[in-house]
């Protein structure tokens, strides 16, 4: 199964993870 997030954010938003990375619930995905 898959979860897709689509969201509006200020242009300064950046992801702190990369494609292919393993993530856990609650792990930081991105911030401004």
């Amino acid at each position, binding site marked *: *199964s*898959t*979860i*897709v*997030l*689509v*969201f*509006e*954010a*200020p*242009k300064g*938003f950046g*992801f*702190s*993870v*990369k*494609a*292919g*990375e*393993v*993530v*856990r*619930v*609650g*792990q*930081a*995905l*991105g*911030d*401004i």
Partner: protein
Amino acid sequence: VAEAWKETPTTWYPLPVAVGALLLVALQYRKKRSERAEVDSSPDGSQVVRLKGPWQVHVLGALPLRNMSRVWGYLNSLELPIWIRPTGFRLYSFIFSADLSEIEHSSDLTKYVSLGDFFYRRLKPGSRPIAEALLVSPADGRILHLGEIDSEGDGRVEQVKGLSYSLDALLGVERGEKGEGKDVIEVPFKRGDLEHVDDKEFANVNGIEYSLDQLIGRGGSPAKDGPADASVEQPAGSTIRDASVAMEVGVRPGIGRKSSFSELKEGSGLFFAVIYLAPGDYHRFHSPTAWVVERRRHFAGELFSVSPWMARRLANLFVLNERVALLGRWKHGFFSMIPVGATNVGSIKINFDEALRTNVRGRKPPAGTFTEAVYSAASPILHGQPLRPGQEMGGFSLG
């Protein structure tokens, strides 16, 4: 009758089974072909989706994936003998590298009565600390793809490198004014189904005081360590009532409707992230931020596998599959989260929406059609179901 029974000669001859099978395949193929169409905003603006990819994809597309998924779910709901459970679940964990040490009943696996129950397991409290970041991961899994959507462009999202799908097809497009071709029914929940959260308590997320105004996007950044924004008067101790879901019977997204995200704020962009949950992963999902879910759109689609192998071959995979698009807002504007089902996990559960039924038997509605529910009465102030970062929202279960 006795005479006829005794005297009538019996003649044996082979039944043309192959002919029957070929006839069934031909009928199925004709049915599929009649449903197929390109993902284009065709002249009337409606979104329809075509199966595109190598021959393996078309073979899969000809299979009764939804029925297979339901049989799979039924078999996995059967209660297992107690003596087989520990060995069986350890074997499953070994094959799919699931970590048994962090699950709720790690000391006594016999508590899981079936594989379906084990699959929908909880983790031990505190197993997943919530980071203090604007956006956190809603699930355990692997990042399949992420980035910014060129919202000036044709609103297509890259599924993986080189394959993209239409965002309008993923989220559905807004429909006409209320009452146009749809019935709105209030479906009240039983009390106690939902966590009662005091607006005040809700506004205090991760130690950062959000005023409701900030939380739902009418204000600036969260007031760190400062008093909640007094400008948002809320009745003292007002609690969020049970969500009652106003069901809107879905209609085919129609002509010239605006996209769900068409008005972006000045200086804002549209971002996306795709997280793939492997069979051995923990399959409940949590809120990725503090946001308010205003509506959900259930697309009763196909149930292709969503493994990275498949995602690299089948274009439009995420707009073909059964999915539940949760649409709402956070303090920076539009926010949506779309759990997408797959062959083995055809059922998507949302804790605050008992009315939702996915992967149900019966004729699949035409591609692109969805059933919409609005969480209008969940909170009189927020006009939707409020969620805190890390709050459990639901999960995927087998079948």
